[in-house]
Structures are given as structure tokens and as C-alpha cells.
């Protein structure tokens, strides 16, 4: 793969720092609850929600909401499409860091 092809393979939806970290976290597990992801990424509820919605709309993340009393208990997981997009993005980054060598 050439550097140019790798550059074109980068996925804008994945590339934002928060979304990239979020997808990396979810790629390492089957699923995780919202609180665990929030603490791992050290971001606010609002910011995390915003990025989760974007990834959900792209079909990369699946969201399941339960309620513990009145408190929502949200479970996040990558979809098959999300895992594939993340892998493609990582492979492109792998290629890019090799530069012109």
C-alpha cells in the first residue's frame, strides 16, 4: 500500500481523538458500560455522548440502554462494521508511520 492510498484509507469518523480512543477501548472488549468508558477516557458525559451519537449514526457503535431505578445504565459495543472500520484505520496508520521508507 502506498502512503497516498493509506492517507485515503483514513476514516474521518474514527480519526477524532475522542472517537479514536473510544473505538480503541471498545475494540479491546465485547462491550463496556458508559461509566467505565467515561472514566477510562476521562471525558465529560456530554462530550462522550456527542461522540457516541456520531459513531452510532455511522453504524460503528451499538448502544443498549437499561434503567437502574431512574438512572440509565448504558452499554456500548462496536458493531461488525465498526470493528472493520477501526482495523482499516489502524492498518492505514501502520502504513503511514513507515513514511517514505
Amino acid at each position, binding site marked *: *500500500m502506498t502512503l497516498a492510498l493509506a492517507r485515503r*484509507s483514513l476514516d474521518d469518523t474514527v480519526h477524532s481523538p475522542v472517537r479514536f480512543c473510544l473505538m*480503541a477501548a471498545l*475494540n*479491546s*472488549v*465485547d*462491550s*463496556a*458500560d458508559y*461509566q*467505565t468508558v467515561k472514566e*477510562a477516557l476521562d471525558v465529560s458525559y456530554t462530550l462522550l455522548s456527542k461522540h457516541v451519537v456520531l459513531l452510532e449514526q455511522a453504524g460503528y457503535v451499538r448502544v443498549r440502554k*437499561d434503567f*437502574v431505578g431512574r438512572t440509565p*445504565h448504558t*452499554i456500548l459495543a462496536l458493531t461488525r462494521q465498526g470493528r472493520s472500520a*477501526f*482495523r*482499516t484505520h*489502524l*492498518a*492505514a*496508520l*501502520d*502504513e503511514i508511520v*513507515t513514511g517514505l521508507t
Partner: protein
Amino acid sequence: MARRPPTTDGSVGLLARADLTAQRSPRDTSTREGLLVIAVAGLVFTLLAVIFQMSRLEWGGLIGAGAALLFSALLPFVAVARRRNERAHPRGYGRRLAVAGSWAALVAGVGGFLWRSDLIEIAAPAWLTTLAALVAVVPMAGLGLSLVRASR
């Protein structure tokens, strides 16, 4: 997309590292969820062990009905509590849970056919039916135990 081989100094690419990382258990699993999965396995074991032996027990019908009632009453609470305590699940957890549930259902079906259907005459010593009930729930209990271990 072609993957580069590991470099000569032993380091590997991001993709390979992500794959390696995904094989490890996450730190943020829930001890309580693991214990609740083990509790579900315990409930299923008790129900199956009693049901497989029902016909050989004095008051077997009553004991079987009591076990079924207890199981039906407790399972929803345990299942809801398990969902409420969900945290991170290791890769493949959902598939393994589905396989463990299907395995328990399969053993229950075979055991029910052998010892409850009256279609065939087969000996049902207590040790054998208890062992069958145990075999049915071992994968599920193991899954719960793996969550507890990973959380510590």
C-alpha cells in the same frame, strides 16, 4: 490490506498490537456480575438435579414443582441484577454466554428425554443425574468465574 511483518527489534504494528490486546481480559469487569452468573448456574444446576431425580424421590412431584417455582421466582431477579451490574466484557463473552446457555438447554433436553420422558427405560442413579446437571452448568459457571478472576 496487507499487514507488515514484525520489525527486527521485535516491535509490531498498531493492528497486531490491537489484536494482541483484545486477547487479554479487561481490567474493568464486575465481580458482582461474575458472582451473579455463577448464581444463575447454581439455580439451573439445582433445578436440573431435582427434575432428573423427581420420579425416584418420595414426594418427587411436590419437590419438583417447588424447585421449578423457586427457579421461576428467583431467575428474573438474578438476571435483572446481572444486567444492572454489567461492566466491561472480554472479547467473545457474548458468544461464550450464548454457547453456555445452549449447552445447558441441550443437556436439560437430553436428560429430560432419558430420565423424564418415559419413552425409554434407563437407570437414573443420583450420582449420574447430579453429574449430568453439573455438566450442564460447568461452562456457565466457568464464565462467571472468569469475570470474577479478571476483576481482581
